[in-house]
């Protein structure tokens, strides 16, 4: 059953036994990256294959770093499919604005701590938006959609990762952006330890670029 049409993939919710051909309870999610007609075959194939492989690896390594992610059951590189555990919960995107301030702060601190765990493990998520976070009934926050992630321990990559999260807050949760971002940073600092401030300063620097930057300030010139 089609569960979600994402921007780059279709997600299907299927019975475990039907997809994996072995005995098992419950449901699985099949994430199928679909071809895009607007880009040439070479780019399309390369992107879909590499993202499928990378995503499944990152799921496993993120989990090892202490960040909840769905268990991966099967990777089909040729078919551009990942079969994974179904996470029963709600997208953080749909709940964040509705929470009471205190609950929102706690949730954001947890998110910040998990981002720090990823970064300390040398991983950047690459698409930190609240639609890629699932809050379960037990209060765990699962990170999904590592298709744009990478193994990159650089300050710049970490700064961009946090910047993206802030940008997602600005475009989607503009009513609570500042308090949410502050709570995320406080969780991030606590978990990341020494060097967190450097990352946060880099975020500020990144945000000063990308506009009509006067030529004399451009690095490539």
């Amino acid at each position, binding site marked *: 059953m089609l569960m979600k*049409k*994402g*921007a*780059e993939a279709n997600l299907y919710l299927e019975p475990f036994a039907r997809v994996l051909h072995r005995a098992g309870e419950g449901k699985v999610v099949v994430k199928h990256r679909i071809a*895009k*007609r*607007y*880009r*040439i075959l*070479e*780019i399309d194939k*390369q*992107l879909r294959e590499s993202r499928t492989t990378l995503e499944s690896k990152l799921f496993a390594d993120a989990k090892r770093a202490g960040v909840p992610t769905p268990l991966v059951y099967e990777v089909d590189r040729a078919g551009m499919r990942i079969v994974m555990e179904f996470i029963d919960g709600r997208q953080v995107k749909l709940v964040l604005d509705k929470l009471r301030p205190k609950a929102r702060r706690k949730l954001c601190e947890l998110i910040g701590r998990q981002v720090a765990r990823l970064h300390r493990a040398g991983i950047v998520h*690459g*698409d*930190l*938006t609240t*639609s890629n976070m699932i809050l379960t009934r037990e209060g765990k926050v699962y990170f999904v959609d590592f298709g*744009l992630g990478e193994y990159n321990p650089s300050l710049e990559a970490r700064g*961009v*990762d946090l*910047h*993206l999260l802030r*940008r*997602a807050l*600005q*475009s*989607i949760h*503009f009513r609570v952006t500042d308090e949410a971002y502050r709570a995320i940073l406080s969780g991030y600092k606590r978990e990341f330890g020494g060097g967190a401030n450097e990352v946060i300063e880099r975020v500020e620097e*990144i945000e*000063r*670029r*990308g*506009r*009509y930057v*006067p*030529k004399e300030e*451009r*690095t*490539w*010139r």
Partner: protein
Amino acid sequence: MLCLGIEGTAHTFGVGIVDSRGKVLANALKTYVPAKGGIHPREAAQFHAANARVVLDEALKVASVSIEDIDFLAFSAGPGLGPCLRTAATAARALASWLDVPIISVNHCIAHVEIGRLTERAKDPVTLYVSGGNTQVIAFDAGRYRVFGETLDIPVGNCLDVFGREVGLPYPGGPTVERLAREGKRYIPLPYVVKGMDLSFSGLMTDAVRKHRAGADLHDLCYSLQETAFAALVEVTERAVAHTEKKEVMLTGGVAANQRLREMLKLMANEHKAKFFVPPREYCQDCGAMIAWTGILAYKHGVGQKLRETGVKQRWRTDQVDIPWRTG
């Protein structure tokens, strides 16, 4: 009611005259072309100052109105290059105080969206705005234009122009790259960088230049550069369309002239059952009419400044501006 709009954020100095129903009476402009290399902000500003009078006179002549018929002024207060912004602002302030009419600061990026909505009768598009100075995916939500994606380093038009310059193509590089790309056949892998909603083109540009120096075929390189850069632009725009569920996609800015980019965006829009719009070329590029029209929208909704509040804002962000003329 007539508004005279002055544009001068970068290369172009433009004067547009628009009435309150959205009829463009004049859209005169002159564009500074650097003798060598990229844009020199101070030279561009001198160009604007030297040509302001000519462009103004031409606009008035084309519109067949006299300067006393103008009811208020609008000018591009940012974002843009400091010296250019200050020149346009000075011209606008001088005119406004001499005519003793109100003056309105307009955000350049928002003006691109608004003139497109006017000429294309688009209601609520996701806009991909791509030029030498800006790369943004913009959509309206809750009182403001939100930026759903932007470049983390150089704008895509700048990526094409600098590549062109480095491999010896005439200025501006964009159109020539497009022409050469049509004869490219073989795809040469180049760095494709999408980070969440945002983009990066500087690594792509340097790698393409490096491959040219290493002897790669220029046609193939132009083809590969375009395909890579544009695929990334369309992917980010598609994310915004999927997220906002809007049913219109618009392409504007100087790079909108590129046929391949149009084709790709149209394919994407079709897949989402969204309408696709590209304003006429004269309204995709920087121009005075877009400033004048946005000035009209703002003025009708009570936005206006005192002369002393008309400072320029080099880094004025699209999402910092309240949009009282739209609801939702």
